[in-house]
């Protein structure tokens, strides 16, 4: 089994190298919005002293940590798989005695992360030089705690993303659904602004939803901003949402493949 993942990794890595120009464009696009927010909010907070209790340094450390966490927890399954469901090339994958998503797509996701990190890290270091953030709140213990949080966060994103992708078994409009999903994630995950400066109602709803587990929670955990009880509660939520997302995926995948094989693969 390990060998399957290792070889898949090799193949996916090689494939993505073939598209390194595309990848670079995508990455630049993806880097733009956090960097713009970083610049805007640190300037405003610097001028006003603080916003909702957040200082310029709080914003700088938040967005810089976000750049890394976002890379680690985001999922690209829909771009890897939806078209294969739509044009029928999924057939080729279904003939192989492995699960096309839990092996193939998962490894492809990880290879993509590794490759984007190669570009991201130098950019990140340059940004640190520019903004001079103070990361003194970060402890090794918090970083270690963030490892399971990030892993489960990615797991949740992966299974939700894969479930949305599987809607392609029923409709060709799956990309619109993904746009909607992205909007919800932006609102509740802390991707554009830290949840602290969102209206209290949204903050209240967000704390129970899985989306803040992808970005806001791991970031605040790393930065040492959370009391132990909040950390414990969020880690428990991580496990619950991970299991729920995995079950959702299992259900929708089984029915989707059944439908795929009923209407003509």
């Amino acid at each position, binding site marked *: 089994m390990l*060998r*399957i993942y*290792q*070889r*898949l990794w*090799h*193949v996916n890595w*090689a*494939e993505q190298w*073939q*598209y390194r120009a595309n990848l670079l464009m995508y990455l630049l696009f993806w880097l733009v919005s956090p960097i713009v927010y970083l610049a805007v909010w640190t300037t405003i907070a610097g001028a006003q002293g603080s916003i909702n209790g957040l200082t310029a340094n709080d914003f700088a450390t938040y967005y810089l940590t976000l750049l890394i966490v976002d890379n680690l927890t985001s999922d690209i399954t829909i771009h890897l798989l939806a078209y294969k469901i739509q044009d029928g*090339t999924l*057939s*080729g994958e*279904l*003939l*192989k*005695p*492995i699960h096309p998503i839990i092996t193939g797509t998962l490894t492809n996701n990880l290879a993509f992360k590794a490759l984007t990190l190669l570009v991201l890290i130098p950019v990140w270091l340059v940004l640190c030089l520019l903004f001079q953030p103070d990361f003194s709140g970060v402890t090794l213990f918090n970083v270690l705690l963030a490892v399971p949080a990030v892993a489960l966060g990615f797991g949740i994103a992966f299974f939700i993303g894969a479930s949305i992708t599987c809607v392609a078994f029923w409709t060709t409009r799956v990309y619109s659904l993904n746009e909607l999903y992205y909007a919800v994630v932006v609102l509740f995950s802390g991707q554009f602004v830290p949840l602290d400066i969102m209206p209290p109602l949204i903050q209240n709803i967000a704390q129970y939803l899985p989306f803040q587990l992808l970005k806001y929670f791991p970031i605040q955990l790393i930065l040492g901003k959370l009391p132990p009880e909040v950390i414990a509660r969020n880690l428990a939520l991580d496990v619950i949402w991970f299991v729920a997302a995995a079950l959702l995926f299992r259900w929708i995948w089984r029915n989707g493949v*059944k439908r795929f*094989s*009923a*209407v*003509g*693969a």
Partner: protein
Amino acid sequence: MIETESLQVQSLSKTYQVPEREPGLGAAVRSFFKRKTKDVEAVNQVSFTVRSGEIVGFLGPNGAGKTTTLKMLSGLLHPTAGSARVLGFTPWERKPDFLRAITLVMGQRNRLSWDIPAADSLLLHQAIYRLSDADYKKTLAELDELLELGPILRKPVRTLSLGERMKCELAAGLLHRPQVLFLDEPTIGLDLTAQARIRTFLKEYNRRTQATILLTSHYMADVTALCERIVIIHHGKLKYDGGLNDLSRRVAPVKLIGVALPSGQPADLSRYGTLLPNENNDGKYLVQVPAAEVAAITARLLSDLPVHDLTIEDPPIEAVIESAFNEQVPA
């Protein structure tokens, strides 16, 4: 009990629901509210069995239901009715042990990743099918020898020619030494040399591994070279199941009499039988006659005309299969 039958297909049927609407805006609006569908019977009550090690040609015109049947037998499609056992498995349950024992090769695409050399995809296949390094090397060497893969394995697949790609697809599809091969048009689009190579390969592979092969092809040369037995379907229904050689006897019990006359001698031979165009350019007239009357007609020809040379032949298999597509074959 050892199963000697690799494939058992029993009343297998597949009905597709196809959306249907009239052209025009009004119809488009109506179909938005009430979608009309039409049932299309792609495969209708097809039954046959295939013994282990047999090569069977699965023939029929376009849209006859061949690919649908192959997809059901390889587990990609659920049938609407009927049952099938492949090596004792129900295909559409897609158990890993089943998937490891079969292969489906369809046209040019499927198993290989487009952007990287086939050799990398093959290494991945080794892991997926859990092949030991020794088995992998041995099979790959054998495939290399039979298909003459050589350097094409190390080029990105998208840079390969059609024939080279097909060879790589076959290699990827056979690396795990499947016991049952479903081949959908394995030689389509290839030049004559490449077609011949793939045919020789399949025959040799079958001889060495005793694999069962069910193959569709529009090239009769594939069929005559590989298959002793053929199954014909048309409009989803089984038309013929039996020996290739028996087909001509059953479907069209006719013979072709070739008659050479002294040059310049005009003759109307249509009163002896159906005059066919002769593509051999050997100056012979070709007369198709009922097989039962071949002796009598030959005698009349010889007594009526100053015959130079006379031959009696079976009609070409292409013509026989063609006519089998279109009429009910007596069993």
